[in-house]
């Protein structure tokens, strides 16, 4: 177990080093989500409010969900697929690192990149938008950890049905669309058009977005419409979403177990 943790940390450090050397990935993972966040916050009408907060603020506090899809998910599907093709996964599987350590390392590096972006976003919200600092950082961290874990396992599963790294752009597309349409990025789930509400409740990004927004703003954005909450109230409000995320964790783990492949050779 301790060896697994050490291996995961070592692999995560390698991942970050490699990310720094890969300009394409760097743009996709780091720059693009921030650019999209900026764009989305600009298209909201001036002075409008959503669920009791300025519309830009509402969007920006939901953007982490978007980053999880675009930065973490796409990057990981790419990584897993390319490394299977290049037989890196095969070497790791045959080597000293356990499967748990390999997934742990991928999840850890993804989480670190994601947390870096959330931190940038928080600074942006305080400095540019005049919002306040996140109200409940432990809750924010918990949602980030669970979200990154779910997305890592989903990415592992999707890499299993992606034959080559070039195909990754295609296989991730439906997932991105569903998450993008389903996640309550611009309006609360309660205000989504009727047909979208069911998918919105189902996609794993929704609980991440709702908990993150609640933790940022200290108000009920988990199904609610921004009623102010105490810290205990924030945890209580987030509980159902945390349970959904845990459920997704199990589903994603099973999917990964079923679909993930270590070896590029015949199955």
């Amino acid at each position: 177990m301790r060896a697994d943790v050490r291996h995961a940390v070592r692999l995560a450090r390698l991942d970050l080093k490699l990310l720094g050397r890969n300009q394409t990935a760097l743009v996709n993972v780091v720059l693009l989500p921030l650019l999209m966040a900026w764009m989305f916050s600009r298209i909201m009408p001036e002075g409008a409010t959503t669920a009791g907060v300025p519309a830009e603020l509402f969007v920006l506090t939901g953007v982490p969900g978007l980053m999880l899809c675009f930065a973490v998910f796409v990057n990981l599907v790419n990584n897993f697929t390319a490394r299977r093709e290049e037989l890196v996964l095969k070497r790791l599987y045959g080597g000293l690192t356990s499967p748990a350590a390999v997934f742990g390392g991928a999840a850890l590096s993804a989480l670190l990149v994601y947390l870096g972006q959330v931190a940038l976003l928080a600074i942006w919200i305080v400095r540019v938008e005049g919002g306040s600092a996140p109200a409940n950082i432990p809750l924010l961290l918990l949602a980030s950890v669970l979200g990154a874990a779910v997305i890592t396992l989903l990415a592992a599963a999707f890499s299993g049905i992606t034959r080559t790294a070039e195909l990754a752009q295609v296989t991730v597309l439906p997932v991105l669309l569903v998450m993008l349409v389903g996640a309550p990025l611009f309006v609360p789930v309660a205000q989504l058009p009727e047909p979208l509400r069911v998918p919105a409740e189902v996609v794993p990004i929704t609980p991440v977005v709702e908990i993150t927004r609640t933790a940022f703003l200290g108000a009920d954005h988990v199904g609610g419409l921004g009623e102010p909450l105490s810290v205990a109230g924030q945890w209580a409000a987030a509980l159902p979403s945390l349970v959904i995320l845990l459920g997704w964790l199990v589903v994603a783990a099973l999917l990964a177990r079923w679909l993930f492949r270590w070896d590029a050779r015949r199955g």
Partner: protein
Amino acid sequence: MRTHQETPAIEVSGLRQRYGDFEAVRGVSFSVATGELFALLGTNGAGKTTTIEVLEGYRPATEGRVRVLGLDPHRDRRALRPRMGIMLQHGGFLEDLTVAETAAAWAGFAADVNRPAIGDVLELVGLAHKAGTRVRQLSGGQKRRLDLALAVVARPDVLFLDEPTTGMDPEARRDTWEVIGRLRAEGTTVLLTTHYLEEAERLADHLAIMHEGRIHVRGTVDEVVAEAGDRITFRLPGDAPDDPPALAGVPPTVTRAGGRREVSYTLTGGPAAARAHAALRPLLDWAAARGLTLERLEVRRGTLEDVFLRVVGAAPPEATARRPAGVAR
């Protein structure tokens, strides 16, 4: 495990491996004693890699029993993983890392499970001068050296080498043999696959020749070579009265070319050490009685190549049966 000399480090019995309706390995059995080097020889597609990958734990055996250090390589991966070293046939690198970073990472993995890594592993495989180079920029042979470094860095008890010197120049090949020799001196058990006969001949304690999923010949190098038999060849002038006699029950093979007769015998019966000598006496007597000279008389031991070619189904033509110049031993 090294104290249990009587337990083989690797045991394979009745291994079969199927992919869909293709059977890549069709009932293979062998065992490798602790500290021994066993070579699996064969053409491409003989089933060597499939066999070695089952032993490495990449997939469970379709049928049969496989043990490495007494453990099931697929089921007991967690226990076995730190004690095995694997050299893949190719690839498997994070190409944007440098050689030194790659070696350091793998040495780190070893340290994390309390296996003292070889400190100067790049020195050992002759890559120290490339330490700062990105893996992407290495030549094929250099990548094989790096692969070897990663396989041995944790000082494994059992080392699997899948065609370790394919794509290497002669110097790199010799270096690799030296590294393998050093690890063996420390007691490492080695299973290697190769299609270079001289590699098997030079390194192996025991070897097996695999063809179409089966092991056809197995034994020490001497045992296997003894099966090839000894060859006696000479030329007779065209006007010699009759064909030479059978020797030790083996009739001569006579081919006529340009007014001469090329004669050859392949002797396989009797004790290997004495049979050529025993066969020559009646032959020389036969020639003396007729006043003939056996031109270009040659006696040579059979070679691994003779056995190999017989197994894979190609009759050894005269030109290739002779060991090419410059090949060791």
